[in-house]
Each structure stands twice: as C-alpha cells, then as structure tokens.
C-alpha cells in the first residue's frame, strides 16, 4: 500500500469534513468510531499515537472492514513530524470535492 497524504485529528467531524480519501489518519482516539469514520472516507490506514491500544471491539471492526491499524509510542506531533520528513504531505479536501495538497 502506498500512501502520500495524512490527516491528524481527534475530532471525527473534523476528519469527515477535511480528510482526503486514501490518506493516513493519525489520532489519539481508540474507539470504534475511528474505524467507522475511516470507512466512510476510505482512509487507507489508522495510526494510533502515544502508545494507546485500540479496544477489542475497535480491532474487531477494523478486521471486518479491512482497515489496517498501526500503533506508535510517539505523540501525534512527533508522528506527524517524522512522517512529514519522510515525504508524506498534509491534505485538505474542500466541501466542493477539490483537493488541496499542501506543505
């Protein structure tokens, strides 16, 4: 799987409003709503930050829907920093569907 963009947030409504399909989602949340949100947007994979573990029902749902979950001990700031340095870019999708890659 190749990923070019990422979005980091703890507000799922924010993810819904702005994240681009195919992006990575970086979040500190671990509940099943993260998976539902990723499913609605066709997010490529979820990275749970700060060493938190997804709840069993989250893992179950992610398995059912085929959405990979990765876990890192880094805080979201550092995870974003490291991914950014490796060439992953931010993305914002406007409401009209146009995509603005930036950074």
């Amino acid at each position, binding site marked *: 799987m190749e990923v070019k963009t990422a979005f980091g947030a703890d*507000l799922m409504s924010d*993810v819904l*409003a702005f994240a681009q*399909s195919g992006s990575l989602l970086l979040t500190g949340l671990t509940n099943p709503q993260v998976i*539902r949100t990723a499913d*609605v*947007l*066709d997010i490529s994979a979820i990275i749970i930050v700060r060493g938190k573990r997804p709840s069993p029902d989250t893992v179950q749902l992610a398995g059912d829907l085929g959405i990979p979950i990765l876990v890192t001990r880094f805080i979201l700031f550092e995870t974003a920093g490291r991914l950014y340095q490796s060439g992953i870019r931010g993305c914002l999708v406007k409401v009209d*569907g146009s995509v603005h890659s930036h950074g």
Partner: protein
Amino acid sequence: MADEPLIYENQFNVQGGNFSDAGKVASHIKAILKGFGIPSEAVRKTALVAYESEINIVSYARKGVIHLRLAPDQIVIETIDEGSGIADIELAMQEGYSTATDKIREMGFGAGMGLANIRNFSDIFHISSEPGKGTSLKMIIKWRP
C-alpha cells in the same frame, strides 16, 4: 423527487444511547450505494451526512429511523428521531455550539461541527425540530451516472 421513480428504498432503525453501534447504518448505506455503482464523491457525501445524523440520534434521541431513497439523479437521506429536540435551531447550526456530554466527546464528536458538516455536504438540507418531541433532517445529494 416525487416524480422520479426510485431505484432503491430502505429504512434503518437507530437505537439512542447505543454508542458501540453508532455508524453501522452509515457504513451499510455506503456499501449499498457502492453496490449500485454510484460515483464515489456522492457516496462519500451521503455516507458522511448519514454518519453525522446517526451520531446525533445515538447522542440525543431515544430512537430514530434513517430512510435511504435512491433516485436516478439524487440520493435522499431522511432521519426522524424521538428525543429532546432542538430548542434553537439557528444556535445549534452554529459551528462550535454543542450540548454534548463527555461520553460523546470521548468518541471524537460533540465539538459542534456535526450539523454544519451535514449542511455543507448536502446539496439540499432541511431541518425541523420540536423541543421535547424530536428532530427531523432531510438531506439531498445529487448524483449523475
């Protein structure tokens, strides 16, 4: 809408307070629309408004129903819930305004963005509410084969 023959119609019950299942109906609706070969942008918008609506029912109502109607040129999502309703719709539509509980906020919702998202991602949006009775939303997303 009334003139157009429907391609598909279904309705789904949503139980208030059932946070672990919140989003299930939206996922289902998305899968149905994908199955009909609806363009991905319209599927994404529909799933998004259905999801935010479902979260609202789970968060603020005893129960509700989400109707899906697929017409040849548009998708209609209609939600009717039995719950506390909204006293001041204009205030509730304002971004950042929220009456969410901690439980809702822990899920990543309740930041006062839901109704604004629903409005922004719908081509046509109607809301009506009766305090103490419930809230009804109607969202239309246009699509073209």
